[in-house]
C-alpha cells in the first residue's frame, strides 16, 4: 500500500502583533495528523472556511512554508520536517501546484508557454524537441491546442482557459500528486465543472492524485475520494468523502453542508452563529468551535477533543459527536 499522504503532528505557528491584540500566537496548523494510504490514485479534499489552515497545509506540502514542528510525507518520501528530504529538482518532479488566481499565477510580462517550456526542459529534463511534444500533449489532455496557446500572454485567455493551462503545466513532469489550492473559486460558477471534470478524468485515466483545497463542498463531493474538514487549524472530521458528506457527524461539517446555497432546497431562516474575530478563536484552549457549536458543553471549553475513530472508518474530533 502506498502512503499517498501522511502528516504527523504538523504545526505551524505565526505570531501577530497589533494594537488590538498584543503578540498573539496563531496556530495556523495545530497538531494535524492526516493519513491516506491507497494503491489507487486518490483525490483528497481539504475543506474549510478562510482561516481554517487549509491553505497553510497546502503551502507546507508545496514546501513554500516550513512547519514549526512535525513532518509530512508524500508518496513515501518525506518532504517536510526534520531529516533528509529530496532536492528541489526531485521534489518538483513529485509535487506540482495549481494556484487559485490564474491571472496571478503567470507573470503578465511573459508568455504562458514560456512556463510550460521551462517545466519541460528543467523539471522533466527533456530535450528541446521532446519538450515541445510534451507541451502539446499536456495541453491536449486539458482540452487545448498548442497552436492556440503558443506566444500568448495571460490576459489573452479567460480565467477558465488559463487555469487549464496551469493544469497542463503541472502535468508535464508527471508528478505523483498535484496540490490545487482553490483552483476554481475565481472562475464563474457555471464554468467550474469544466475544470473539475478535468481533475476527475486525470485521476481516472492518467493515474494522478490530487490534493484539492476548497471551501466549496459541492465540487468536493463531486470528485473526492477522501475529505478532511478543518477549522481554525485543526482537523475536525476525516474519512471517506461519500460517507462523510452523506452523514456528517461533526457539528461544523453539518454547518458547512447547511451553508451551501443549493437549488431546490431553501435555507431555514433561524439566525446562525457567526464567526467571531479570528485571532480570538485561535486562542481557545478547548475545542476551537465551541463558541458556535450547538451541542457544546463545559468540557468542550477546556479540553481539546482527540480523534475518535468510528466504525465506518472516519475520524471525528469531537467529544459528543
Amino acid at each position, binding site marked *: 500500500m502506498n502512503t499517498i499522504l501522511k502528516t504527523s503532528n504538523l504545526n505551524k505557528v505565526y505570531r501577530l502583533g497589533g494594537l488590538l491584540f498584543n503578540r498573539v500566537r496563531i496556530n495556523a496548523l495545530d497538531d494535524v495528523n492526516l493519513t491516506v494510504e491507497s494503491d489507487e490514485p486518490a483525490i483528497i479534499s481539504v475543506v474549510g472556511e478562510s482561516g481554517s489552515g487549509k491553505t497553510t497545509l497546502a503551502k507546507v506540502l*508545496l514546501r*513554500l512554508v516550513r512547519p514549526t514542528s512535525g513532518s509530512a510525507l508524500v508518496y513515501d518520501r518525506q518532504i517536510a520536517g526534520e531529516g533528509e528530504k529530496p532536492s*528541489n*529538482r526531485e521534489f*518538483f518532479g513529485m509535487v*506540482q*501546484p495549481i*494556484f487559485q*488566481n490564474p491571472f*496571478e*499565477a*503567470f*507573470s*503578465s*510580462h*511573459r*508568455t504562458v508557454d*514560456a*512556463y*510550460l517550456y*521551462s*517545466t519541460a*526542459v*528543467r*523539471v522533466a529534463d527533456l530535450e528541446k524537441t521532446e519538450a515541445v511534444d510534451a507541451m502539446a500533449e499536456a495541453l491536449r489532455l486539458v482540452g487545448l491546442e498548442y497552436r492556440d496557446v503558443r*506566444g*500568448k*500572454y495571460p*490576459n*489573452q485567455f479567460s480565467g477558465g482557459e488559463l487555469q487549464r493551462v*496551469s493544469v497542463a*503545466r*503541472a502535468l508535464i513532469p508527471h508528478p505523483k500528486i498535484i496540490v490545487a489550492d482553490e483552483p476554481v473559486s475565481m472562475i464563474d460558477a457555471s464554468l467550474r465543472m469544466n475544470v473539475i471534470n478535468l481533475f476527475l478524468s486525470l485521476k481516472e485515466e492518467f493515474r494522478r492524485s490530487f490534493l484539492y483545497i476548497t471551501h466549496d463542498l459541492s465540487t468536493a463531493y463531486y470528485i473526492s475520494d477522501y475529505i478532511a474538514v478543518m477549522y481554525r487549524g485543526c482537523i475536525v472530521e476525516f474519512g471517506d468523502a461519500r460517507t462523510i458528506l452523506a452523514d456528517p457527524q461533526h457539528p461544523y461539517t453539518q454547518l458547512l453542508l447547511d451553508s451551501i446555497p443549493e437549488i431546490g432546497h431553501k435555507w431555514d431562516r433561524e439566525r446562525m452563529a457567526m464567526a467571531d474575530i479570528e485571532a480570538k478563536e485561535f486562542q481557545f484552549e478547548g475545542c476551537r468551535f465551541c463558541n458556535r457549536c450547538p451541542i457544546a458543553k463545559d468540557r468542550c471549553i477546556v479540553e481539546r477533543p482527540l480523534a475518535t475513530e468510528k466504525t465506518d472508518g472516519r475520524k471525528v474530533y469531537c467529544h459528543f459527536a
Partner: protein
Amino acid sequence: MKMNTRLRIGIIILAIFVLGSLFLPLFNDVDPIKQGTYAKSLPISSEHLLGTNSLGQDIFWFLVYAIRNSLILGITVSIFTTLIAGSVGLLSGYLGGGADRATMTLTDAVIAIPLFPILIVLATLVRGNTSFMLVGIILVVFGWAWGARTIRSMALSIREREFISMAKFSGSSTLEIVVREIFPYVYAYMVVSFINAILWVITMESSLAVIGLSKVEIPTLGSILFWALSYNALFTKQNVWVVAPVVATVLLFLGLFLTSTGYNQMYATRRGHA
C-alpha cells in the same frame, strides 16, 4: 510605443541637445577653450551666435562643448549607478534574509553620508587637479544607494506573488527568476531613475564647478558659470555669458523631466498586453 505629447516634446528637446552636442563640433575646428581667440566681449552677431566673453572665447561654441561634456558625464555615471542599483536591489530583495540585511546596512550607510560636503572636502584637497574621471567615479560610488533601496523594496513585494512560486516549480534558477520574472516589473522604474540620475549628476558637477572645485578648464555647464562669475559678468553687463548656460541648463532639465514623467505616464497607462 504610443507616445503621449509630454514624452514626445521631452524626447525632441533631448534629441536636439544630444545630437547637437555630438555633431555640431564637427563643424568647428577652433578650440573653444583657447582664450583670446577672438576679440573680447563682442555682442551677438552672425559670426558669433552668442557673442564672445571676457576671455575672448566664442560663447556659443563653448556652450556646445560644455553641454557635450556635461551630458557625457551625466550619461556615463547614470549607466553605472543604474546598473549597480539594479543588481544590488534585485538580488538583495529577492534573496532576503541575512544577505539582504547586510547589503541594506551597507546601502543605508552610503545613503547617510552627506555627499556634497565630502565632495567639497575632497575637491579642496586636490584643488584644481581633480581629473574629470575622478569626479565621475565619486559620483558613481555615492549615487547607486538610493536606487538600490527602492528597487530592493519592489523586489521584496514582487517576491511574494504567485507567479514567482510558479517559476520555481517550473525549474527556474534564482538568476532566471530575478531577470525574467522580477526585472520586467522594475525596469520602468529603472528607466525613470536613469533619467533622473543624469539630472542629478549634472547638478552635482555644476555645483562643484561653480565654486571652482571641479576641473574648470574643461567646459561644462557649471564651469561656464564659474568663469562668468569670476569675471564679474553680471557687473560688466555681459548678460549673455551667464544667461546662455542657465537657459541651456533649464531647457536640458526640462527635456529630461518631460521624458522621465512622460515615459512614466505612458508606461502606467499601458497594460501588460502583447
